C-alpha cells in the first residue's frame, strides 16, 4: 500500500513535470523571427486611428510614428518597408492578441509599466516616445509654468489616471484648483473651448491633437511641464530574445543615426564616411547586423527607407506635421532631451 502510494506520488510528480515543461515550451514563443522571415512580412498591431501615431487614409495607407517604426523593423529584415502589415487592435485586446501570436510586435502607443511586463509575460524593448501629462492654456493667460496654475478651474476626464495625477500634482505643490470633470473627452474639450475652464489636462501628445479641433487653435498653448511618466514603447513577447534584439536595435539605430547626422537624404554620403562611429552604424566597418541575424547594412536599410529618429518624429508628430509637438523630452540627450541610445560597437 505504502509503495503503491509512493509510486503514485512519483508518477504524478513526473507527469506534472512533463506537463509543466510542455506548457513552458508552448508558453514562450522563441521563433518570431523565423516565422516572420518564412511568411515574408512583419505583422504589426497598431492603433485603429490616432493622428500622428497610426491612422489609415481612405485608401488604407497607414501613416504615423508607430507605423513608421514597424516599417523600420520590416526594412531591417527585408530591405522593404512595405513588408510591414498593419493589424488594428483595440486597447483592451492588444496584449492578448500579441500573446496569441496574431501579431509579431505591438507598435501601438502603449505605456511601459512594470505590471504590464510581469503580468502579461511581455517585454518592452526600449522607449520610442516619452509622453506624459501636461496642461493646455489660453495664450492670453501669459504664464509659462504649471506652477502658476494655482486657483485654476481644470477640465479633466473623469475616472482616469489623468484625474489622479492632477490631484497629486496640485497637492504636492501646495496649490488649489477646481475640478471640472466630464465622462467623455469630447465634453472636456467642449467645456474648455467655451471658456468654462482655465486649463485642460491630458497626455501632452493628446493635447496637441485636441488643440487642432478648437475654434481658434493658435490662441492656445501647451505648457512645457510634464507631470507624469507615460513612456510609449513597442512590445514583444517575453523570452523571444532574437526578436526582441531586432526591435530594440532598430530603434537604437534610428536614434544613433540622428545623433551622428545620418539621414535618409545623406545616407549614400554616410557610406563613404571615414568616421568610425558612422562606419560601424552603416556597416562599412564590422558586421554588427550579422550578430542580430540580419545583414551588415541593416541600419542603412532602415535609414534609407524610413529615416532617422528625428526625421520620423518631425514627419509624423513634429515640425513638419499638423500636430507640431516640440521635441521636448524626445529630443536627443545631447540636445536638451532624454532620448539616449547605447552605442553600436
Amino acid at each position, binding site marked *: 500500500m505504502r509503495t503503491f502510494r509512493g509510486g503514485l506520488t512519483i508518477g504524478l510528480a513526473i507527469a506534472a513535470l512533463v506537463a509543466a515543461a510542455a506548457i513552458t515550451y508552448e508558453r514562450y514563443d522563441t521563433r518570431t523571427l523565423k516565422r516572420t522571415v518564412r511568411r515574408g512580412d512583419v505583422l504589426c498591431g497598431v492603433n485603429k486611428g490616432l493622428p500622428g501615431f497610426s491612422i489609415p487614409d481612405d485608401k488604407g495607407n497607414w501613416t504615423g510614428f508607430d507605423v513608421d517604426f514597424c516599417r523600420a523593423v520590416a526594412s531591417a529584415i527585408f530591405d522593404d518597408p512595405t513588408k510591414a502589415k498593419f493589424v488594428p487592435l483595440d486597447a483592451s485586446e492588444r496584449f492578448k492578441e500579441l500573446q496569441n501570436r496574431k501579431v509579431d510586435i505591438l507598435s501601438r502607443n502603449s505605456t511601459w509599466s512594470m505590471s504590464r511586463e510581469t503580468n502579461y509575460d511581455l517585454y518592452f524593448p526600449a522607449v520610442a516616445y516619452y509622453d506624459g501629462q501636461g496642461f493646455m492654456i489660453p495664450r492670453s493667460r501669459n504664464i*509659462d*509654468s504649471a506652477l502658476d496654475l494655482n486657483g485654476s478651474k481644470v477640465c479633466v476626464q473623469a475616472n482616469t489616471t489623468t484625474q489622479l495625477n492632477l490631484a497629486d500634482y496640485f497637492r504636492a505643490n501646495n496649490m488649489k484648483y477646481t475640478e471640472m470633470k466630464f465622462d467623455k473627452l469630447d465634453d472636456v474639450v467642449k467645456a474648455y473651448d467655451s471658456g468654462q475652464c482655465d486649463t485642460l489636462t491630458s497626455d501632452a501628445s493628446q493635447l496637441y491633437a485636441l488643440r487642432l479641433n478648437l475654434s481658434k487653435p493658435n490662441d492656445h498653448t501647451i505648457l*512645457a511641464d510634464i507631470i507624469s511618466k507615460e513612456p510609449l514603447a513597442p512590445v514583444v513577447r517575453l523570452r523571444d530574445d532574437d526578436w526582441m534584439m531586432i526591435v530594440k536595435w532598430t530603434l537604437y539605430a534610428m536614434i544613433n543615426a540622428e*545623433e551622428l547626422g545620418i539621414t535618409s537624404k545623406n545616407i549614400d554620403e554616410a557610406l563613404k564616411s571615414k568616421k568610425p562611429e558612422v562606419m560601424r552604424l552603416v556597416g562599412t566597418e564590422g558586421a554588427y547586423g550579422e550578430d542580430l541575424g540580419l545583414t551588415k547594412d541593416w541600419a542603412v536599410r532602415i535609414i534609407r527607407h524610413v529615416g532617422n529618429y528625428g526625421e520620423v518624429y518631425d514627419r509624423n508628430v513634429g515640425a513638419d506635421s499638423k500636430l*507640431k509637438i516640440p521635441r521636448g523630452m524626445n*529630443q536627443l540627450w545631447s*540636445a*536638451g*532631451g532624454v532620448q539616449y541610445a547605447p552605442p553600436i560597437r
Partner: protein
Amino acid sequence: MTKLRHLVWMLIATGALVLSTSQGFAQNRPDADEPGLIADDSYELDPEWQKQVVYYRTNEAPGTIIVSTAERHLYLVQGNGRALRYGIGVGRDGFQWQGLVTITRKAEWPDWVPPPEMIARQPYLPRFMAGGPGNPLGARAMYLGTTVYRIHGTNRPDTIGTAISSGCFRLVNADVADLYNRVPVGTKVIIRQKPEL
C-alpha cells in the same frame, strides 16, 4: 537730427535696393540680404519658429544662450528643465561655426558695416547702412566675442528657419528685442553644429 538720419538711411536704402535688384537677381544672391526692405511686423511665424517655453535639460546655468544651428533654434536656459526657445535663421553651408563665446556688446537699431570678406563675396552690398527698419541687422544686435558674427534682428522674417546668412544668427525683431532685454553683456553663448559625417 533724427529726421536727417532717417533721410540718409532712406537714401542709402533706396540706392542699395536699386543696386541689389539690378545685380542681385542676376547673381542669385545666396544670402537674401535685402537692405532697404522694411520688415513686415505682421508676418506670422510658423509655430515651430515662434518664441515659446520648452522642456530643455542642460548642465548650463540659467541665463546661458545655446544656439542649435541644425535645429534653427536659440535656447535661453531658464533652469528647472526649461528654456525659452526662439526660431532663428543661421549661416548657409560653409558659413557655420561652433564654439563658446560671450556677448561683448549690445546695440539698439545697429548700423550695418558689412565686413570686408562679405563685401568681397557680395560686392553689391552697401559699405555702410545706418540703423533702422530697412537695415538687415534689424532692431537689436548682440556682438559675439571678437568675431564678426552677431545675434541680430532682421528685415526678412520669412528667412527664419532657413540657413542663408553669412554666419550670423537672426531672429524676428520682436524676438530679438525680447532676448536683448533678458541678457546682459558677458552672457555665455554656446554654438552647436550638426555633426559631420
